[in-house]
């Protein structure tokens, strides 16, 4: 009997010692990027917590960027990186987009010339309006009413007037890539024979490293999925999980994702979906969910669209209220739509893609 208690004591002692050792060794493993663009990128160091890949990747990305900045002595008028949340994206996204052209040239020649002189207005012709008028949603975004700049797109709070829309079979050769919001689309309003590569917590940092599965394909990484099938349309909706991290790291990872997708599926039309905003309640939990921050990221996403093969659609024009927030009554947690609204999202999408030219379908 006594022997047993000695054993117990020894094992408790040994594991405590192990804990001390691991604890002091792991001092820096887990860091939480919280601050949006400033220098503070790390906060908590919880113990035993080596599992959060996304945080690590975000921090790594931020560190890489920082290290590059330190090596390269200020490339092309680029320095305001640390100057807090910049409202104007072009100068900020430029240095990041120096990466895409390396792999982008092979496919589309018009797209190739695009990155250096990205300008937001380019998306205007690409926006297929539900009705035949010019897109009402992009106009106020660039310059708000009355000269005062609105950082977000005022939406219609769920009021939707359907125009001409594509048939559901349009999505038969489509692939949706996204986080839990796309997961909601998959669960509650699956369209056609589309594939859904999505999982809760997916981010641009993780998307190439995560394995997902769906009805029509077994668990695999995105690249192998893109290798094994040919898609006509690829819809990407990623960004809410990255809100707390740095914008430049986000844009860069987004660019890498686009490069990969483009290289594997040269003929596919890529449709970039804006990040849906959150409710004020959600913003109260963390300031990074503010419409201002989300829309800043949406602007960055929009600069990837070229109107030829890459398009941008903004779901906030459907769900957001006048103030840019997701209104009450659409969500219980302030971030995810109630299941009953996903069909509305799909109907709206069917209108939005109506004018998008797709190879082999004209």
């Amino acid at each position, binding site marked *: 009997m006594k022997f*047993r*208690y000695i*054993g*117990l004591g020894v*094992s*408790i002692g040994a*594991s405590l010692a192990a*804990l*001390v050792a691991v*604890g*002091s060794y*792991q*001092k*820096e493993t887990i*860091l*939480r990027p*919280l601050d949006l663009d400033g*220098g*503070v*990128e*790390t*906060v*908590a*160091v*919880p*113990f*035993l*917590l080596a*599992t*959060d890949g*996304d945080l690590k990747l975000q921090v790594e990305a931020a560190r890489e960027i920082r290290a590059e900045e330190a090596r390269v002595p200020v490339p092309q008028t680029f320095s305001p990186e640390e100057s807090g949340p910049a409202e104007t994206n072009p100068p900020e996204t430029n240095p990041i987009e120096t990466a895409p052209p390396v792999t982008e040239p092979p496919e589309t020649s018009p797209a190739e010339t695009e990155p250096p002189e990205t300008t937001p207005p380019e998306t205007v012709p690409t926006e297929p309006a539900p009705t035949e008028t010019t897109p009402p949603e992009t106009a106020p975004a660039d310059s708000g009413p009355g000269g005062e700049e609105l950082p977000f797109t005022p939406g219609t709070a769920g009021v939707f007037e359907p125009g001409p829309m594509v048939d559901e079979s349009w999505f038969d050769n489509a692939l949706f890539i996204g*986080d*839990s*919001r796309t*997961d*909601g689309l*998959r*669960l*509650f309003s*699956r369209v056609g024979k589309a594939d859904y590569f999505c999982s*809760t*917590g997916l981010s641009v940092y993780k998307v190439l490293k995560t394995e997902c599965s769906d009805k029509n394909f077994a668990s695999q990484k995105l690249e192998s999925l893109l290798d094994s099938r040919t898609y006509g349309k690829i819809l990407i909706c990623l960004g*809410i*999980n990255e809100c*707390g991290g740095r914008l430049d790291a986000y844009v860069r990872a987004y660019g890498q994702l686009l490069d990969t997708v483009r290289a594997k599926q040269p003929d596919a039309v890529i449709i970039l979906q804006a990040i849906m905003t959150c409710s004020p309640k959600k913003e109260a939990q*963390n300031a990074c969910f503010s419409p201002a921050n989300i829309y800043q990221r949406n602007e960055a996403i929009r600069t990837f669209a070229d109107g030829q093969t890459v398009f941008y659609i903004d779901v906030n024009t459907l769900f957001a209220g006048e103030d840019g927030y997701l209104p009450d009554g659409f*969500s*219980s*947690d302030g*971030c*995810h739509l*109630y*299941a*009953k609204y996903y069909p509305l999202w799909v109907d709206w999408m069917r209108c939005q893609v109506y004018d998008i030219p797709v190879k082999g379908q004209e």
Partner: protein
Amino acid sequence: MRKLKIFCKGLFSSGRLWYNPFIPFSTEIDGVNLTPDTPCAFAKLDRMQFHSIEFIFYFLPAFLAVYYVLRGAARQTVLAAGSLLFYGFAAGWRLLPMGSLLAAVSLGYLGGLLLGRWPKRWALLPLCAVFAGGLVFFKLYLGGVLLPVGMSFYVFQLIAYLADIVRGRISPEKDPLRFLAETSMFPRLLSGPIADSAELQRDCRAPRVGLFTFHMGLQEFVLGLALKVILANRLGGLWAQGAVYGFEAVSTPFMWLALVTWCMRLYFDFYGYSLMAVGLGHMLGYNLPMNFLEPYSAKSVSEFFRRWHATLGRWFRDYLYIPLGGSRQNTARTILNLAVVWAVTGFWHGVGGGYLLWAGVLFLLIVNERLWLRRLLDKSRVLCHVYVVAVILLSWVPFAAGSVQETLVVFRRLFGVGGVGAMEDFRHWIPMTARLFALGLFFATPVPKLLWRRLQKKAWADLGILALFWACLYFIATSAQDPFIYFQF
């Protein structure tokens, strides 16, 4: 010194960081100076509870070390002081709960001395009225928001103490410190169990501290922790996910899955907590009663509630139902007594239509069983179990849903009113929850307890317990990233 100050500040501020117990002050990382109250996305931590890192790594070891070193009356002093400290952490050092606890305990102490001199029923009534009035005041008048943590439990314990003095079962406690230790000992301060006052008094005068009880207590504590952290916390996510989807649009199979996981969560949460309390009691040399006696293997609803939260049920029986006359008079009187008990039970759980609905339905079922249903149920054992599980699962719906409207929505989905729905949600979640679900089903049967009784004596059982403990720590530490919980989207 500065670090110590930061550390203490962190300990006492509510929105503090969640730190490595071995790196309590992570000061500089990447040139950024961090303090324990730097905001952090996942730092929203429960206030001190048995399953928190703070309790397991700071409070409990420190307390036990002091408690074991001291002898005799000093132990009770330490227990009293430690319990107040624990309550302070748990209640966030706010004045109202601390004041209420101390006021209630002082009133109980003085009342006990008074009743010891004049053990009369009429003297007991006003004291009980004050306690009950306090509870009603906090629950009804202040809407339950400001209800001090654990008040429902310590008030009931004090009423039991006073009533037992009048009945002559125990003599009043003369030593105020010992009384404080006895009535507010931290293992049962927050959520019971409500102990038998005679046994509590006996234990407090001579706690049976020893290696054997410590060992047993440690095992029970870890098992309870595992139920809470590995099962309950993770099972609870599916219901939350359903709420995010909005129940009106989920499919019927998903709704059933969510309801069953919610019921499991409720059971393992409270069962785990109670087991931890009993384990802590054993470590301190106290014998606290078990709260859960395999309720889901009951054969009738009335039996279910003798096994579910048993100490509360016993309290209601001993201090309300029997004084009212119990079942010794005619049937109508018995039913009336039951109605009173269930009305109070409903109110005790919370204020609102949902709770009253819950209590009302259970009251009707129990009366029904008493009068007619029992004869039918006696015929088949299978029928009994099916009946109890079905009825109990459905009876938790008002609890889970929170409001009457939401309850109706859930019931509509459960029975497929307006179509079963497209089941994609169910197909998506079933592979992720299947393992936990099966584990939950297994632990809802009496088998694990029997198994444990056999294995307990084996020498390698402790290794298993140790492994379980580390698994629990892992889940506590990573719970912030549990895909169920909404830190990720």
